[in-house]
């Protein structure tokens, strides 16, 4: 019984971690202020 509880705790923690990370997602950022180029850049 105690082994089952331990396994369930591990599984719950894994689920909680992954769900939290995916719910947080990745930052969206902002549109770059840099222009669409009409000159040849010297370097990348």
């Amino acid at each position, binding site marked *: 019984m105690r082994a089952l509880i331990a396994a*369930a705790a591990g599984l719950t923690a894994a689920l909680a971690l*992954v769900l939290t990370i995916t719910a947080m997602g990745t930052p969206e950022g902002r549109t770059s202020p840099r222009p669409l180029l009409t000159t040849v850049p010297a370097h990348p």
Partner: protein
Amino acid sequence: MRRTASLVLLALAVFFAALSPLLRWYAYPRLVKVPADEYQTMVLQARDATLLDYGTMKARTVPEITVVQTLKGNVEAARRIERTAGRDVVVWDGLSYVQGPDGKMVSRIPERYIFDAHTQEPVHATGEMVDGDPVTRNGIEFKWPFLTQERDYEYFDAQARVTAPIHYEGTRHFRGLSVYYFEQTIPWTRVPFPKVMPVAGITPESVAKTGTTRWYTTVRKFWVEPVTGAPVYGEEIHKEELRGGSLLGGRDRVTVFAGHVKMREDYTRHTVDLVKSQRRLVLLVTSYLPWGFLCLGVLLLSLSLYLEARGRRTPGPAPVRTEEPEPLGS
């Protein structure tokens, strides 16, 4: 004490073993995506190219033609489209600016490409266009999906505004990376004149009145890093002609542009370095961490079982025998 330790190890073993598939099949498709705020520039060059001199209406060889390509993620437009599309969307506003050896503009083609941030499938929304003309892409453009497969893909050609197969031609090695080589041939196709012509006073409408038409063919080559789906190198054998009408002075056709366009060396190096770093991040979620966690889970489970087995095998202290004192007798 040993019992408690084995239970803790069991919980940790289940935690890591469960984390492995969750990370690969739940977190990866949701977290790994093209960022909406991407800004990229690319410079390509064609040496000894053929270019039409609009003054004499004759083609001449020029030492170099440069193509400057910019892709800029439009975050506000992406958010707007996401509300109706119901998925993560990337909107790339792009400009392909072609410059002659004298620094003058040869052509400038703006476009808007809208696609799913995770799968790179095109998303259709108002504003999707090439040179101001609404288009419907049915294939990828610029970038392949993450974990690219060894198969043909549908690729959108912005000049002809058509989607056609780009064929997988095998795996190659390119500057320390294993890459997939793709090739697409667009046969001679009649294409619209650019909205902005290289000569002042000439418009697509005025050229159309002469009966002259614009034709184009290309062989497009991409070396794609399969984990990120990012091309690390590209070439294009590009030809454009004007055909028929009164503009050509009785000639059947005139070359507008012909050249073998290749990525500039410094941009190739920069792209390879960038893709190598991004590749590691994608592999972390798709391979390194899932496999690492799975192995750790198995290891912890083995340790837990070992401790449990030892705990059961070890005999406890021998029972103390208490004997009744014998009665003193004769």
